[in-house]
């Protein structure tokens, strides 16, 4: 994948600083930079108006381990959020990505920090792979000052460098992402914007408006539909006249991907990156995935699908179990190693939870910041007398 050991190392260093945890350093030191060849199953991709990516891919052993750890950490983070929500430490609307881990993790493995990502409200995993720490995500969820958005937004509102959110209004992020892609093209950088939306969101008019602009101006816009089969309680087949989302760009080539296989996701995203780097214009990727939990914390997720269906997906398609099996089969790590990784991940998440939980809430005056650029706030912003603001500061 990488041209030299040095670039691999520098990439690895970046990951280490992202995770900010000791265990990852240790892991890197012990894992192997040796590459393995993998043949993806035929069923990994389906194409629309284009040739598929190669089914043959090369990954390093440490990369496989890293992806495993990232997916496990993400799942643990979401399950911590679930617990915190149930103990009322997280308020507001909270959407978990449990089951869908392969999408952000595989994408991250294929792109650079200079590529942009924008997604909807199911955003914790994407925030993390774009440099948000687990602590800053959990702190945001709990409305703490140390949260990635200063604790002011909560679940749907997370942002970091080259990660344009965290967007709560279904579909709104799609034209926004198209504007980001235009700017990349304008700047002549070899970067792309990955614009994520759901199978439900795919029916918003602005998605099609964005498709048209992206193709018209041949932008490096990679539209990524995370098809988890449901938009809230409505099955994709009942919301969409054409649930083959990868074909819905009409004049934009598309690729359907097994989004439960992190390697297929990685391969597809590398391919897509290459496509836009060659100025071939936009693409529509459909990641076929599955959410195990309800739509949000207030939805048990079992009234519109059976428990058996969820159980079946978990036991036959789980992205973590899948990668774990591959790692074991290839003899890259032993059961004992993996147990140890899981233990370390758990400790790390526990630590982040404890820290976030003891962090302070934002100061009340933060209510009035960031509405307008500092220093230009119109006097009306406080809504009542100036006096009140002064009192709050005391």
């Amino acid at each position, binding site marked *: 994948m990488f041209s030299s050991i040095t670039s691999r190392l520098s990439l690895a260093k970046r990951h280490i600083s992202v995770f900010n945890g000791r265990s990852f350093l240790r892991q890197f030191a012990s894992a192997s930079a040796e590459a393995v060849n993998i043949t993806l199953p035929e069923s990994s991709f389906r194409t629309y108006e284009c040739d598929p990516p190669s089914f043959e891919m090369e990954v390093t052993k440490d990369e496989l381990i890293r992806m495993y750890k990232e997916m496990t950490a993400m799942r643990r983070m979401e399950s911590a959020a679930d617990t915190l929500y149930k103990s009322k*430490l997280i308020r507001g609307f909270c959407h978990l990505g449990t089951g869908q881990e392969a999408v952000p993790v595989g994408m991250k493995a294929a792109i650079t920090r200079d590529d942009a990502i924008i997604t909807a409200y199911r955003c914790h995993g994407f925030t993390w792979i774009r440099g948000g720490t687990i602590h800053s995500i959990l702190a945001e969820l709990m409305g703490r000052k140390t949260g990635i958005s200063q604790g002011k937004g909560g679940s749907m509102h997370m942002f970091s460098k080259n990660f344009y959110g965290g967007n709560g209004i*279904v579909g709104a992020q799609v034209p926004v992402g198209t504007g980001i892609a235009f700017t990349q093209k304008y700047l002549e950088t070899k970067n792309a914007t990955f614009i994520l939306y759901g199978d439900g969101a795919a*029916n*918003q008019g602005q998605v099609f408006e964005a498709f048209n602009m992206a193709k018209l101006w041949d932008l490096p816009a990679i539209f990524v539909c995370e098809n988890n089969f449901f938009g809230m309680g409505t099955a994709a087949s009942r*919301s969409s006249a054409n649930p083959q989302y990868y074909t819905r760009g009409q004049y934009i080539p598309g690729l359907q991907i097994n989004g439960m296989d992190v390697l297929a996701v990685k391969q597809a995203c590398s391919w897509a990156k290459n496509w836009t780097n060659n100025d071939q214009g936009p693409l529509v990727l459909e990641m076929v995935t599955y959410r195990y939990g309800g739509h949000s914390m207030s939805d048990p997720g079992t009234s519109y699908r059976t428990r058996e269906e969820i159980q079946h997906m978990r036991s036959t398609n789980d992205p973590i179990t899948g990668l774990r099996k591959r790692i074991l089969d290839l003899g890259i790590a032993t059961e004992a190693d993996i147990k140890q990784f899981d233990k370390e991940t758990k400790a790390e998440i526990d630590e982040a939870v404890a820290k976030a939980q*003891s962090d302070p809430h934002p100061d*009340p005056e933060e209510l009035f910041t960031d*509405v307008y650029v500092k220093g230009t706030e119109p006097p009306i*912003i406080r809504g009542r007398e100036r006096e009140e603001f002064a009192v*709050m500061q005391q």
Partner: protein
Amino acid sequence: MRTSRTTTLLLRNFANIVHSRPLIRNRFTHKVFFHATRTILQATGQPPPAEGFLPGVAQSKFIKSTQEEALKNAELANTGVANGETKKMNMFQAINDAMSIALATDETAVVFGEDVAFGGVFRCTLGLAEMFGKDRVFNTPLTEQGIVGFGIGMAAMGHTAIAEIQFADYIFPAFDQLVNEAAKYRYRSGGIFNVAGLTVRSPCSAVGHGGHYHSQSPEAYFTHTPGLIVVMPRSPIQAKGLLLASIRDRNPVIFFEPKILYRAAIEQVPIGDYELPLGKAEILKSGKDVTVIGYGSQIYTLENAIQLAEKDIPGLSCELIDLRSLLPWDVDTVANSVNKTGRLVIAHEAPQTSGFAAEVATNIMERCFLRLEAPIQRVCGFDTPFPLVFEKFYVPDMIKCYDAIKEVVEY
């Protein structure tokens, strides 16, 4: 979590401050409020409870919890349900009941929106698909602009379209359809077409922890649009009667439902078919010194603020009016009241600037200028996005409303 006796004490002290101690000055109140809240946040590691520091809707004097109280309503006198049966319903059940009657009495009526066939997020359409069939109560794709445009087309054919927009925060993708298409259809076609049968229902306002996108009160964006009717009920009985009137009204109606009341407000609701008048305010409590105006869930906050003020200021008597309809709104009832009291306080959750209170204040200034004893007070949300962690600071809570009443009395 460091919950402890300190917390309990703090909470209790704060409750005392809020509920019973006379408040010396505004400055003091605010200071106490912000500091107490901040301390509670820090001590418990938890935000204040969702229901906040206000006594619940359940204790409200305006909630009709017996059949007798429910039927005493003069507006029901000529409706045919005046001597009928009532049933205990919360607000989502009353809304459900209204739609059920609309579907049963009008064979062109259909109900649609995101997930409504399953009952909708707030259960308002529960069981309707089973009762009336999936061709009359159906799920739409996620497409707000499409939903409203589609409803307009149906209504243009003379049918009754009852659309749900899942949250008022998501009505904005449909803004164009509502403002440019629905509101102007009759006008721009010179009366050849209209969308008389269109009603758009949508849950609005604060719930305690809704954050930026599940809490907004966008009514004023629509009251700025001639051609629309805008309604917001305060209780189950009101919701049922006003919704039936809205569905049958010969103009497009936007019906905002304060979501915090769906389960919290429970009344004995007449089971029959009745309508309550649109464009008509209701005087909930008469008084002689201050007119206090609100709508939706704000009514209960105002009720408490009035209670506190009347207890605090001996002899004070406040008049409370629920506007119910915001476009058109009942200027006469409000002006008559202010001509009597000489003082006006208006409260709503939406931001103050260009909010609905501004419209009320201007009209009353025009109609009652010589009778006003004090500047009209607006108690509104701050001019910021609706916050998640700071909801309690943001909303025009009882203390702020109390302050405003006191302000006009002592002016």
